[in-house]
């Protein structure tokens, strides 16, 4: 259910948890929350986890509709709150800024920091995915020239993003980890034997990167209705800095939606509905994802000239 690679231990830093319903002192105001990076990190972790849970890669049995609806509602709530306190717009603005040629250097610097981290981790630097916000707008990642399908960047993003995401989980820009209680026993975390096994088996690979690219695809599948507002004028570089550890393409749901061209654009419950009544199945959509990856690899080889 929960991909093993992303299982985490959290230390109790004593901060308020996203989940705690019985806050001792008064709940933080929205303004205070905006400043609380640990809360933002927890919220984003919760968003990530929810998107992973919504992976509809069931091989055999139909997904539990009630569970899917509750998780999707949770994601909506997070998105609404992030929209209200400006976090969502900031991320989309960061994306837009990274696309402007004049801002390339800034964006590149920001992005290359991540790429360096990936290189240190032993991976060859891969092009970083920066994708357009407006529908239909696709751009190649910053450091390369020419237009290539966004699909390319989505796949090549895979190996890089887990470093970022785990970086954002483990130590945010302010050095605080999310403060959920530790998983005490293995028993708590064991996957149920129910039909809810949601490993993206069809992807065929165990790496975190594939899980995350599947997450992105899941975001697309599930959140067809979540539209990113068009970005405002160029953002504050300081704010970009704030979210430099965040993998923007991953959270840009609308981008994700438009990124996977070959997958049919379906709303979240279209997919659920089609699973339960008629039409394409999870199997077919995941197999198309797989062929996308092969195609992208091929394109990458041409570009890189290997």
């Amino acid at each position: 259910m929960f991909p093993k690679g992303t299982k985490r231990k959290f230390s109790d830093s004593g901060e308020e948890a996203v989940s705690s319903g019985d806050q001792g002192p008064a709940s933080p105001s929205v303004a205070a929350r905006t400043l609380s990076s640990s809360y933002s990190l927890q919220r984003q972790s919760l968003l990530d986890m929810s998107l992973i849970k919504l992976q509809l890669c069931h091989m055999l049995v139909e997904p539990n509709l009630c569970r899917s609806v509750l998780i999707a509602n949770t994601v909506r709530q997070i998105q609404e709150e992030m929209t209200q306190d400006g976090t969502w717009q900031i991320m989309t603005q960061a994306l837009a800024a990274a696309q402007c040629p004049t801002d390339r250097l800034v964006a590149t610097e920001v992005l290359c920091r991540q790429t360096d981290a990936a290189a240190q981790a032993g991976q060859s630097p891969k092009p970083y995915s920066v994708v357009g916000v407006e529908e239909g707008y696709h751009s190649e990642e910053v450091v390369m020239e020419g237009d290539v399908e966004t699909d390319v960047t989505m796949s090549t993003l895979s190996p890089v993003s887990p470093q970022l995401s785990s970086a954002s989980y483990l130590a945010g820009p302010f050095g605080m980890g999310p403060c959920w209680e530790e998983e005490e026993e293995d028993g708590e975390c064991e996957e149920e034997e129910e039909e809810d096994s949601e490993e993206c088996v069809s992807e065929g690979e165990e790496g975190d990167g594939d899980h995350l690219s599947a997450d992105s695809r899941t975001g697309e599948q599930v959140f067809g209705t979540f539209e990113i507002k068009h970005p405002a004028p160029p953002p504050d570089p300081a704010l970009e800095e704030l979210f430099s550890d965040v993998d923007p393409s991953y959270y840009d749901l609308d981008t994700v939606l438009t990124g996977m061209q070959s997958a049919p654009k379906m709303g979240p419950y279209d997919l659920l509905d089609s699973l339960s009544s008629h039409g394409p199945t999870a199997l077919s959509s995941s197999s198309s994802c797989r062929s996308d990856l092969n195609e992208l690899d091929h394109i990458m080889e041409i570009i890189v000239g290997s």
Partner: protein
Amino acid sequence: SNSVRSDSHQFVFSADIISTVEFNYSGELLATGDKGGRVVIFQHEQESKNRPHLRGEYNVYSTFQSHEPEFDYLKSLEIEEKINKIRWLPQQNAAHFLLSTNDKTIKLWKISERDKRAEGYNLKDEDGRLRDPFRITSLRVPVLMPMDLMVEASPRRIFANAHTYHINSISVNSDHETYLSADDLRINLWHLEITDRSFNIVDIKPANMEELTEVITAAECHPHQCNVFVYSSSKGTIRLCDMRAAALCDRHSKFFEEPEDPSSRSFFSEIISSISDVKFSHSGRYMMTRDYLSVKVWDLNMENRPVETYQVHEYLRSKLCSLYENDCIFDKFECCWNGSDSAIMTGSYNNFFRMFDRNTRRDITLEASRESSKPRATLKPRKVSTGGKRKKDEISVDSLDFNKKILHTAWHPKDNVIAVAATNNLYIFQDKIN
């Protein structure tokens, strides 16, 4: 005493996991359904004359395969054979009838006894082989001879192809002629004699599935008013509907919802408010709902809040993030009334189950496990320690085994006998008769 604790990593054949438990109207029979599609019926044996101070025990009466796994070729998906619910019909003759359902198909089963056999047929001999008619020289009347009791289960009706989504509830109407079945988005009304059509009485499917934010989680017919039923939702609401008002009961007669406490709002508020079970009291005056952390009793005449709220495991409120991560937050616990509606029972984790006395407001936590359940031994109350200091015999929240969940419990309609399903084991507990 056995001091070895059970291994929390015990391997269990998943097909043996009990998925529903239900007493019949008299309490003489107890049915269980499991993940493998089997139904096992237990029968209460008469008290022994030698030991009148003990109630009789429940022994296996009948076992049969109710549902088989199916494959939906259109959608390339398996349909699980797991029995989601069993509901008994009131007994009208010597045979017993029950409804059992998986995600898609409801079946009416007849369970009948055979303890006599006819012998002395004219046209066939004792082995069943046909006799040569020309060799028959005289006629005889077949005689009924006693035989070992045989209990036969035969499917009498199959109610199929009426549910696009997964069936979560079935409920027999007080008219004893109709019953309702509910899936995530629709509720259908059936006549027990008619299998090729049903009436759709509730449909909450939006035109655009992208707009779906709420599903039906449980439904039940009123125990006395055959035109009234309720259904609960994933948003913590209950709607009471009157079938006389309209053919399609999309508009409710009553709407039950407790206002949210703004100070305890979190991202998990909606999930933990989702109602996993709804049960009318035997009297028909109240109904009980189970959400993730509590059980609520509602007076049917008061829609704006429950009249009683019982905390099942409030210590889990600070653990909701972990429980969301391991999916336990989506566990669907059931609840049940005792025969006089004075007590209610529901399950929890670590094989614990909770009972609440509505009159005295006392509650008790008990454990259904081999170690703590020697035959004839009295169950010892359990306690979960929530503070820093753990007293002796208490168990800390972090030591709870979340794989050992008690989702299904049943209370005898008349006596103080309860059935508790703990994964693949069935426990039957009864009061000692003084």
